[in-house]
């Protein structure tokens, strides 16, 4: 299996969770120093539990109050907003002029990127916290109703629904013909993307809310059983696993031949992808559940503040004391970092 590269996007765009469907976490040069000031601050009117996304000079942020905000990144002012029918904990995804996101009312919405009008909605049986992933015009997402959904991204027309064994909070990794995801029943699933049929499933020791990355025929994913797994994308066989001190909710990012992830034990880990050998681990807080962002030789992680570490050795290059209330995954865009907080503030930091 070839390395997934995702769609080619303008350098400044950040259209989905971890920047692209390859879970690259960015892969461009990032600030070599800590941000020093807030360029602007926007009040979302409700806690933000999701990650912002960025497209064509606009930042899109969902809030628990159920609002999707479009914010001008130059001025920090609202361009439009869309009110969903329930709370929103999901990070949105962009697709061809639409923003897709799930809600606690069980619906996935598609909203026009330009004016915030609703284009379609699809119901599920429970809250949708995982991000929709779009591949070949089809949006794939899991719901807490224990079902995986495939809908046409342009229309919302249902392609198929597949029930699996537990709640789904793991964002799907969509390869060309397979889907990979973790599940609350503790299994990693591989589904046929055209039918939803289960191709294989592999058990871990506890539930999974981490989202997988796939590279070189390996599915990389953490489990609440404290282990980080590398599983054959073809057969589902466990190739190696690495034990941390507590559960792993953080999703991995990939850089060169290393994978990076956080653990609830407070460490950021760097492992060699092919062997699972520990390259380094660095304490960045008491608890880490965020996925890391990868730049050119720099890995950034949100923990007790925002940390930038050297990918080669885990040395902390800088730490920004952005307060404990920050509870979102940052978007890193050149010299600017966009962050949202539990208190409902969105910041542009430089």
């Amino acid at each position, binding site marked *: 299996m070839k390395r997934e590269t995702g769609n080619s996007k303008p350098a400044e765009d950040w259209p989905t*969770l*971890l920047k692209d469907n390859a879970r690259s976490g960015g892969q461009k040069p990032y600030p070599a120093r800590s941000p020093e000031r807030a360029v602007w601050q926007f009040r979302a009117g409700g*806690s933000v*539990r*999701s*990650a912002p996304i960025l497209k064509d000079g606009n930042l899109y942020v969902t809030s*628990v109050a159920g609002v999707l905000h479009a914010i001008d990144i130059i001025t920090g002012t609202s361009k439009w907003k869309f009110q969903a029918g329930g709370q929103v*904990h*999901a*990070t949105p995804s962009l697709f061809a002029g639409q923003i897709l996101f799930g809600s606690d009312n069980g619906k996935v919405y598609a909203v026009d990127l330009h004016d915030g009008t609703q284009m379609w909605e699809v119901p599920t049986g*429970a809250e949708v*916290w*995982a*991000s929709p992933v779009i591949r070949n015009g089809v949006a794939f997402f899991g719901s*807490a*109703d*224990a079902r995986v959904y495939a809908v046409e991204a342009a229309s919302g027309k249902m392609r198929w629904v597949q029930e699996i064994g*537990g*709640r789904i*909070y*793991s*964002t799907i990794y969509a390869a060309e013909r397979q889907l990979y995801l973790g599940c*609350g029943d503790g299994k990693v699933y591989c589904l046929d993307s055209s039918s939803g049929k289960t191709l294989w499933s592999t058990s871990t020791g*506890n*539930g*999974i*809310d*981490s*989202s997988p990355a796939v590279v070189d025929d390996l599915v990389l994913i953490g489990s*609440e*059983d*404290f282990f980080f797994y590398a599983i054959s994308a073809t057969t589902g066989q466990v190739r190696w696993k690495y034990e941390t*001190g*507590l*559960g792993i*909710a*953080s*999703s991995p990012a990939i850089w060169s031949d290393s994978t990076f992830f956080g653990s*609830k034990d*407070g460490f950021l880990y760097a492992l060699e992808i092919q062997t699972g050998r520990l390259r380094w681990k660095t304490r960045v*807080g*008491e*608890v*880490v*559940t*965020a*996925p890391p962002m990868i730049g050119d030789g720099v890995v950034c*992680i*949100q*923990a*007790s503040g925002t940390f930038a570490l050297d990918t080669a050795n885990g040395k902390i290059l800088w730490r920004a004391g952005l*307060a*404990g*209330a*920050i*509870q*979102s*995954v940052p978007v890193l865009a050149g010299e600017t970092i966009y962050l949202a907080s*539990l*208190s409902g503030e969105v910041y542009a930091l430089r």
Partner: protein
Amino acid sequence: MDRRTFVKAGCIGSASLLMQGLDPMMRAESAPTATPPIELHGLPDYKPSPLGMPGLFPARVIEIREASAIVRNRVSQPIVRPMLERAMKELTGEASAREAWARFIQASDIVGIKINPSGAPACCSSPELVREIISSVQSLGVPARNIVVYDRYSYEMDVGSYQALLPAGIRIVGIQEAFGSGGGYESDVYCDATFFGEWETRSYMASIVVHEVNKIINVPTMKDHSASGVTGALKNLAYGTFNNVARTHRAPYSFTNPLIGLMCTVEPLRSKSVLHIMDGMRQVWHGGPLTQVQDFIDQPGVLLVATDPVAMDTIEMEAIEKTRRERGAPSVWQHDAKSITANTEEFQHDASKNLFYRQPGHIAAAGQHGLGIADLKQIDHRVVSV
């Protein structure tokens, strides 16, 4: 879990509270001279239930211990299952676990399971235990949609990954997103008092308790608490049901005694809380309730089961006191000014230091309000094995 990151509650709580002028680590200007008057406003015309605290079995506490229930910090659900069954049978005297559960829960009930995620991930209500409780409730015919696992703070539940780890179909509810966020509370049911001259004097009861559930299974954890002495069944119910409670602390003073017990007397919380299952898989003996320092977290693999929260917390306190003695830490009753520090780092890593004068007397005070038995000599403490 990509949608968010998390910064441990010790930081997040302080930051959020600070913004609202509610930081419990704010120093008191002077020692309070007396407990202020506390007004209690329960749900009008609510008919108390005989299942309400102290419940069907006052003074009885069942303890079951199995070291293999937690190995290398991982709780084993297959071992928790027979432990819970055995303890339920011992508590009720019933021959089967199903009959034991049926003493408290009927198929038509809307069952709330009040967890304690505040120390997550290091010490919180174990998802493995919560899953077993859910399974037991479902075995009585309660449909999944009528089971609600809840706590006050969504973000703390998120850190515990309860959303992902509990079965599909049940509801998982955080009453509020974070400290100070509104909504989710009943305006007519509250406690009213001024402790330190704060501007907001009311603490409201959660609407989910007042209106949605009719039975509550309380799942506290076994932890030392820097302000209340220990946090167990009583505190998990009181401070996990009413809002605006951080105002009762101004370092180094705290009014957790008598407020915890008083809150537990307010209807309908008192009547609906029919069973308490304390998760003692882990025991925090210093640094609670939020510590993540593993040096202060033992793994005894214990469950306590009772309907009497006062007796349960009395047994819990004895266990924590025993551990503290063994480790050379001062009693939770100690009120030596030399042990008080304003340095949270020092508190977090030195078991001889504390942020507050602890108030373990809140347990006996709750007993005086009729919630149960605090006298060890009167407590029917049964230690059983699988």
